[in-house]
């Protein structure tokens, strides 16, 4: 039996039912790769919850789950850092100059999503630049 059919059936079933665009389920080198796009951050969270239950702390490392939240320009997002400010940078990389910041819990506007890791955002104060997407949760 494969990983998809066996250990992770609940996860692959949920991914299929979630109406993701560009859904891909593939098993390669003993690792189950699941990827897809959603506009709804709660769909992403739901799938990650299931994954975390089936493999606590993701310790086994036999799944690569990659759900991208793709939204239209102008969508608001909440800053989800632990407590620190989120740096807004001149370019998409941590080596890039910091041009502003957004506080934990603050709402920013997503201008564009050049890739999965870095999104172009604008703060209420009018600062515009790239922020690390992992710390942004698009508001539905």
């Amino acid at each position, binding site marked *: 039996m494969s990983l998809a059919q066996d250990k992770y059936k609940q996860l692959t079933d949920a991914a299929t039912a979630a109406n993701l665009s560009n859904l891909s389920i593939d098993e390669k*080198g003993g690792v189950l790769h699941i990827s897809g796009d959603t506009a709804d951050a709660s769909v992403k969270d739901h799938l990650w919850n299931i994954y975390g239950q089936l493999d606590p702390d*993701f310790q086994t490392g036999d799944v690569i789950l990659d759900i991208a939240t793709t939204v239209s320009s102008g969508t608001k997002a909440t800053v989800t850092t632990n407590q620190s400010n989120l740096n807004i940078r001149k370019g998409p990389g941590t080596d890039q100059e910091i041009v502003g910041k957004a506080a934990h819990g603050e709402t920013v506007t997503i201008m564009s999503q050049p890739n999965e890791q870095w999104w172009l955002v604008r703060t209420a104060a009018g600062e515009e630049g790239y922020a690390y997407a*992992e710390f942004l949760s698009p508001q539905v």
Partner: protein
Amino acid sequence: MTIRPIRTVLTIAALSATTAFYSCKDKVKDSDIQTAIENAKASDAKMSGVIATVKDGDVTLEGSVPDEATKAAAETNVKAIKGVGTVTNNLTIAAPVVENPMPVPVSSPLEPGVMDAIKSYPTVKASVKDSVIILEGSISKADNIKLTQALNSLHPKKIDRSKFSVK
């Protein structure tokens, strides 16, 4: 029979002595010219293939240089050396042989993304090998979710957590 006037004889003798005197003072030793050529070569890496032989002030240049400009410069430089007579330029133009070129390390395209992802977590170390991300150190449960999401978005083949702990 012509008898040279004593005045002429003395003049010739004086001139000879003078000429002989100037030659002794002006003649630069071949070894000094060789040293000067070696010094000139040292200032330009492109001249390292030049082999110079000096005999009685006359210089022959042989060997190979990478381009026409270097060949011409070698000749000009040698001619400017004091004591040099004729310069025979037999230098050939040949592309330099690159021996044992340094292998260019191919950095994984995953690496910059991985470094960005772990930047917020000082207790986490990561390396990349053959598109596998190897994690070391530790992280909290809450941060583990965010870190894993960020690393997965880079599309690695696998994440090796054998040396990694979640607290």
